Structure formats: C-alpha cells, structure tokens
C-alpha cells in the first residue's frame, strides 16, 4: 500500500462524508421539481446543519446522560461505516471492513436511537421507537442476509473490498439470480432503513404516521445537527453500497488516472440514478399505513432469503 493509495482512500472517505448533505439536497430538489415546485437549493442541507450547529440545545429535564451520548454514538457509527465503504476506489481506509461488523455497527446506531427515543418521556419518542423496532426486526435480518449472500456468492470471505472487487472482476458473469434478488432486497431495505416513503415520510414532524422523526423529536441544536448528519450519511452510505458492492462495475480497482476518472463519473451517475429513483418513488407513491409495512418488509426478507437459497439450489 503506497502513500498515493492511502491519500486516495482518505480523500474518498472525506468526500463520502462531505457530499452526504448534497445527496439529500439533490433528492429534495428532484422531488420538488417533479411536484412542480421550485424547491430549495441543493445546498440547503449544509445551511441547515450550519444553523443548527450554532444554536443552543434545549434538553428535556427528564433526559439522562444517555440522551446526550446518542448523537455521538450515531456519528461514530456512521463515520466508521463511511470509512469501510468503497466509494470511488475499491479499497477502504479502515484497517478492516468486515461486512458482519458493518451490520452490527448499524445495529449500534439503531439501538442507540431507539433507546434515545424513550428519553424525554413524551408520547412521540416512544411511538417512534416502538415503530422503529417493528420495522427493524424485519429489516435487519434482510440486510444481514442480502449482504451475506454476496459473501457466499463470491466466496472471498467477509471483507467488503474483496467482495466488491470479486464481483467487479467477474464482470457480467456475476449477474445471477442471487445477485439480482439480493439487490432487490437491499433496495427495499435501503428505502425502509432510511425511512423514506412509502415506509415513512422524512419531511414531516408531528404526524401520527412518523417513525424516524418521532425518535428525533427531543433533539435540538448540536444534537439535532449530528443526528441529521448521521441520517444523511446513512442514506449516502446505503446508496454507495448499492453502487459499489452490489453493482460495482466501473469502480476503479487500480490507481490509473483513466480508471479513477471513469470511476468518478460512474459513481456520480449511479448516485444520481438512485437519487432519481428515490425521488420518483416518493412522488408517485403514498405513504403506507403502519400495519401495511410488515407486508413490504417481509417481502424484502423473503427476497433476501430466496437470494441465498438460490445460491445453493441453482
């Protein structure tokens, strides 16, 4: 590993973190345009975060020490995940990038957030946590199994760069029922995990249907800024994983300038396509009733299970 490679990996790690508010801004913009609105600038999320960071926090008198820790735990989890996600270049900066550990770091984030939602003692936080629990019991296994399918399919172990590299190297030959099913499961998981429509509406507060925002309702100021950043980062990481691990073709495996340039172009196109897809979905589909969600989530779970079974049967 030479210095150039290390510099490149640090750069892509920083880039992944820095563009995440932009991605959210772009999705909001596309959505607004689809609904015949002008929409805020795509840089609006940066301004929001900047504003929140300057504000003082208002904390409930019932909140304990853990409430103050949750934003830090969330940010830590997301930064660690960002360090493990291949972005433009196939390698990652983290000294390890074990996919199982990645799933568990997601759990760490989710668990902290669920517990944090119960602080404050209002009805909203508890409701958010309760619904998040219902969703995550079905999402989490689907996420685990769909990622594990890739590991089993490539047979290279649990290192995400190996998995990504192996699918990339195999080219079109890697397209198999297992990959497609796992990809489909992962897409549903991505939408659900990031609390987008039809599972949840990220734009509303104080609505009886909310999940994610319910858990965030007690946060303000810096805490909210960190929680929002963590959410944006989570969306970006999921989109990137879809683009560089499930369908990694085009991601640079070597350090040649031409490959890297191509890779940058390819990843931008991939992210934009996924962003467009999410925005389209959010514009044409209404949010589901809470108790309709399990059907959709079970579908994702079943897809991931079928992906893995197809691996052994076919």
């Amino acid at each position, binding site marked *: 590993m030479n210095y150039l490679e290390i510099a490149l990996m640090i750069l892509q790690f920083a880039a992944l973190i820095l563009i995440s508010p932009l991605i959210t801004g772009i999705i909001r913009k596309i959505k607004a345009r689809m609904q015949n609105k002008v929409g805020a600038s795509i840089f609006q999320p940066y301004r929001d975060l900047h504003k929140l960071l300057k504000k*003082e*926090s*208002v*904390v*409930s*008198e*019932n909140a*304990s*020490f*853990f409430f103050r820790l949750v934003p*830090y735990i969330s*940010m*830590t989890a997301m*930064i*660690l995940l960002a360090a493990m996600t291949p972005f433009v270049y196939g390698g990652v900066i*983290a*000294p*390890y*990038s074990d996919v*199982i*550990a990645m799933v*568990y770091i997601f*759990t*760490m984030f*989710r*668990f902290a957030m*669920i*517990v944090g939602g*119960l602080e*404050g*003692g*209002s*009805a909203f936080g*508890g*409701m958010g*946590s*309760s619904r998040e*629990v*219902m969703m*995550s*019991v*079905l999402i*989490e*296994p689907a996420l*685990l*199994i769909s990622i594990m399918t890739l*590991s*089993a399919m490539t*047979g290279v*172990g*649990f290192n995400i760069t190996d998995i990504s590299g192996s699918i990339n190297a195999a080219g079109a030959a890697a397209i198999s029922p297992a990959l497609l099913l796992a990809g489909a499961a992962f897409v549903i998981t991505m939408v659900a995990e990031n609390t987008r429509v039809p599972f949840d509406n990220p734009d509303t507060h104080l609505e009886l249907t909310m999940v994610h925002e319910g858990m965030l309702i007690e946060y303000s*100021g*810096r805490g909210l*800024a960190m929680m929002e950043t963590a959410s944006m980062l989570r969306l970006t990481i999921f989109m990137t994983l879809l683009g560089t691990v499930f369908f990694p073709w085009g991601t640079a495996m070597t350090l040649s300038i031409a490959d890297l340039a191509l890779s940058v172009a390819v990843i931008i196109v991939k992210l934009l396509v996924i962003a467009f897809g999410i925005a389209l979905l959010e514009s044409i589909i209404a949010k589901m009733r*809470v108790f309709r969600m*399990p059907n959709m989530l079970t579908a994702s779970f079943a897809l991931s299970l079928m992906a*893995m*079974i197809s691996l*052994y*049967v076919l």
Partner: protein
Amino acid sequence: MDIFNLTLQNEALTVIFFAAVFIPALAGTILSLMFRYNKVANLIAGLCITSCAVGIAAYPLRALGVPLSYTFPLSSAVGDYALAIDQISSVMISLSSVIFMLIVVHVVKSSSDSGCRYSGLLNVLFIASFLCMAADSVLVLLISWEMITLSTFLLAKKGNNDRARWMFFVIAHIGGLMLMCAYGYLAWVAGTQTLSDWNGLGAIVGSTTSMILVLMIVMGFGTKLGLLPFHAWMPGLYGTAPTHTAALLSTVCSNVAVLTIFKSIYSYIGVTESMSVIAFAIIGLAAATALWGAMESLVQKEPKKILAYSSVENMALVILCLALGMIYINESPVFAKLILIAGLLHTLNHSVFKSLMLMTIDTVEDCTGEKNIGRMGGLAKTLPLLAVVSIIGVFSMAAIPPTNGFVSEWLMIQSIMGVNLQSKGMSLLIPLVLAAVGICGMMMAASYARLYGFIFLGRPRSDGMREPRPMKNGTLLPMAVLAILCVGMGFFATVIMDVLTTGVVSVTGIAPSPSYRSVMSEEMLPLILGVLIVITSVAVLLVVRPGKEREVRTWGCGEDLGKEMQYSSIGFSQPLVRVFHPFYGDTTVVRETKEGSKKTVHTEFTEPFVRYLYMPLGNAITAISEKISKTQTNRIQTYFGYVLITLIAVLLAVRIL
C-alpha cells in the same frame, strides 16, 4: 529427584486446592444447619465467598501444570467418586466461580435475600456446581446435578410461589431422568464409570443409539437451559424466586449444563458422520427455541421475566452452535472449532452480562419496591450510577460492539456463513439458521431497549419510582466489576478464544492447526474494532463539542404531562405483537366495571405452551388420578377383594405362561 519433588508438590497442591474449595463451603453448610441468627448469615456467606475465591484458581493452577485430579477415599458398590479438571472445565470453573462470588457478594450487600438458610444453600449450590463441572465419575456427575436441582429448588422459595417451584421441580426431574438413563447406559457400555476413560463410545453403540443418547443428553440438560417445550418453568420461577437464585440458575447452572453437553457429545459419545440427522433436529429445535424466547420476551411485564426469556434465547443459540459443530466436524473441522469456540464464548459472556442485569433488577426492585415494568421509569435521573452499569449490560446483551456479547454473535455468524459444506442439502441449512439468528438478534435488541428504556428513562410512572431509596452500600461493586468484564471481555476476546481453543481441541480431537484465526475475518480482531470505536468517538467529541444547553420540561402540547402520558411498555411492543400475533397467545379481555357504564379493555398474554401443552397434560393426569382414587374406598373389605383378584390373576398368568 527434581521431577519427583515437582510431582509431589503438584499432588500436594491439588489436595490443598480441593480442600480449600470444599472445606469452607462445607463448614458454611453445617453452620447454616446449626444456627438461625442473622449475624451468622454473613459468616456463612463469607465462607461461600472464600470457596469461590479458591475456585477461581482452577484455571491458573491447571495452566501451571497442576494435574487437579483427585479420587475421594470413599467407594460405593458402583465405583469411585473421582474428580478431574481438564482444561475446558478449568476455564468454566474459574469464570463461574467469579460470577458466583460476585453474586454472593451482592446477596450479602443487598440483604434482600439474606438469612442463614439462604446463605447455607448457596454453599450447597456452589459445591454441587463445582462437583458437576469437575466430575470424573458418572456417580459424581449425576449426584451433583441432582444436588443443583434440589438446592435451586430450595433457594427459589420466596413467599407463596409453590406453583412455579413445583413446575421447575417436575420439569427438572424429567430432565434428570433422561440423563440418568443416558449416562447409565453409557456407563454400562463403557464398562467403567470413569468419565475420562469414555472416548468415542458412539462407535461401540452404533449410530442410532448414539443419536438417541445425544438427544437425551441435550434434552435432559435442556430442561434447565429452557429448550422448547421445557422452558415453561423459567418465566414463572424467575419472576417469583429471589433474584439471586434466578441469577445463579441462569449463569452458573447454565454453564454447568453447556459444559457437560459439550463434553458428552464431543468426547464421551463422539461425533460420527451418520449423526447429522440428530444434529439437524437439534438445530431446528434450538432455532425455534431462540425465536420463541425472543418473541415472548417482548411482551413480559416483569423485568425478571424478560431476562428469563432472554436466557432461553441465549442458551438456545449456544445449543445451536454445539449442534452445528456436529455437522461441521466432518466437513470442515476448522469451522467446527470456530463455532464451538463461539458457543462456549457465548456461554461465558452470557453468564457475565446476565448476572449483571439480574443484579441490576434486584437493586431496582429493592430501591423502589416495584416489580412491574409498566410502573417504572425515570430511574436514570435518580440512580445514575446504576443506569451506567445497566446500559453497559444492555449493550452487551444486545450485541452492540465493542462489548463481549457482540464478539460471540459475530463469531457465530462468521462460522455459519464462512463454512463451505459439501452437500447441497446441508448448505440449505445455512440461510435458514442465519435468518433465525438475525431475527432473534434484532428482537432481543428491541426487548433490551424496552427493558432499559422503561426502567431507567422517561418519567416515573409510579410514586415508588419518583423517590427511590438510595442503593445499599457496596451493592454497586459487584455490578461494576461485571460491567468492566463486559467491556474487557469484548476488547480482549481473542485471549479467551485462544484459551478456549486448547480446550476444544483436547475435547473434540480436532487437529490444532490450522488455527481458527485462519478462517476468521483475520484483520478485524475485536480489539481493533473496539479501539477504532473509541478513537472515532473521541474524535467526534473533539470536533463537535457539546454546546450550550438549556433544560426545560418536556413539551406536552401545552398541558402538564401526567405520569401516564407517555409511551407504555406494553404499547411499545404492541406493533410486533400484531405482526406476530398467533404466536403470542394474546387475548383481549373486555370487562364491565361495577357501575356498568364503563368498560375496561386489556390484553392478556398466556404462554401458549402452558395453555396448550402443560395445562391439558396436567388436567389429564389429574383426571386419571381422580378416576384411580375412586378405587381407594378406605374399607378393608375392598382391599381384601383387590388382594384376592390380584392373586387369582397372578396365578392364572403363571399357569398360562
């Protein structure tokens, strides 16, 4: 000459070790029979602590090369009473002694379960568990296992909880009966009752018999571990018995059971290729048990019952690992090693975090006098230190990195996924097992979030919670030690894994190389992940320091929030109950109040296994007994009649045959 001296020294050390373990505990037992003063109770508990402290030395002594085997100068018609501590037992004994000691310290300090009788029984339980783990003859094994059952049965007495206790008693004895048959048969086949001479008896008895024996041993010990359908006693007993009894049952007794199952399957009987059928059956049972435990824990109303089902789930995962090992061992020995290490590590980890959590619950109940999680809340504000140790325990149970619970689950998933099985039929097992482990993991995490959230967070839901009594002096100490262990065993898990490897290798006979590390995701040792998490969080903290902060009352839409105006613990898991409805056995009861104008609605949960299996079974047995009891007329003439009928029947039978 030197060598001679060394062996002599070692033998002397062995005798001193066993004497130091047994004498204080025996003295404690005898004292408890003689005295009834509460002052003596602390002395008796102190003797138990001494024994435990000596018990911790088992692993270091073993590692120094002291043989640690001893035959009592007694003999029976069946054989000798022998003890021998091998490597894996010494690890289990040391850790179990640590846990046992901390629990006894907590018993003394919290004084919620004190008394001569209780402390004396703790001594008995310690002797029994130590003997069971160290047993080298069948007799010692069976007698000490029975002693564990009896002493926990007596330790479980609190108030009027006979129903739960007798259920435990009966179910534990069904298990004991199975074990007696299995080990008795094995001893007969082996021709000796010395356990260390039993090696691969499965080859002698044939595969069908050895499969039945494995099943009997797993189910027999499974009655204590809570395998379906024998888990039914657990919530009841955990809910009503003294919390420390529950803690001992779920940690030390489980360790004993897992250790003995492990040695029985892999060493005494030995795994042959044709045994995969029974492995499949056990895997299915364990997966079902784990799912069942995870689901039921979500609707429990008492923290101790939540933890009871959590024990069911955790122990089912351990059994799952042991059963998977039976399949792996012929296909890919190195993965067998990994999954057995994962299972044993999970047993150790489970005993650490579960004893921590049960002590926490005991302290909560002691300080507030509240047992129902629906009436708790807001303790983190009034008992912050307890909240800190408790959140570490909860993180550990929920398998959040970098705690110890994470490491063993991570190892489990790695060994399930990494293995490359030859036959496609067996490969199909992998996704199903993985799905079960995944769903259980998340459900349990939800359950622990509920456990912590509704005890420590939010606003107090009853008056007892508003102003709890302060914690008793010194109760925090054992909990703090366990919390440190939870984190420390996560960071330095590889050290324990290396230690366990030696044990697994010597019991199973798998070749020591290649090392389990060759198949582990190599770069990512738990230590590195732990350090990375710490570094990253410090970095985040330095970049975004906590800003200005103002404390206000929680916004309640302009109203004053009453104590009920927050999410309830039963409402929290309601969405999941609706999703998994048929499994919960939940019935909604609508009752009219006396005035008749109001109706109350509430949901009742009855464990379906109790309702559909144990209740009908119990009723049937009662009905049959009642029929039989009609023959008992208490008149001498009838009995003479019975004697006459029997005599004629016997004579006829003899004549005809």
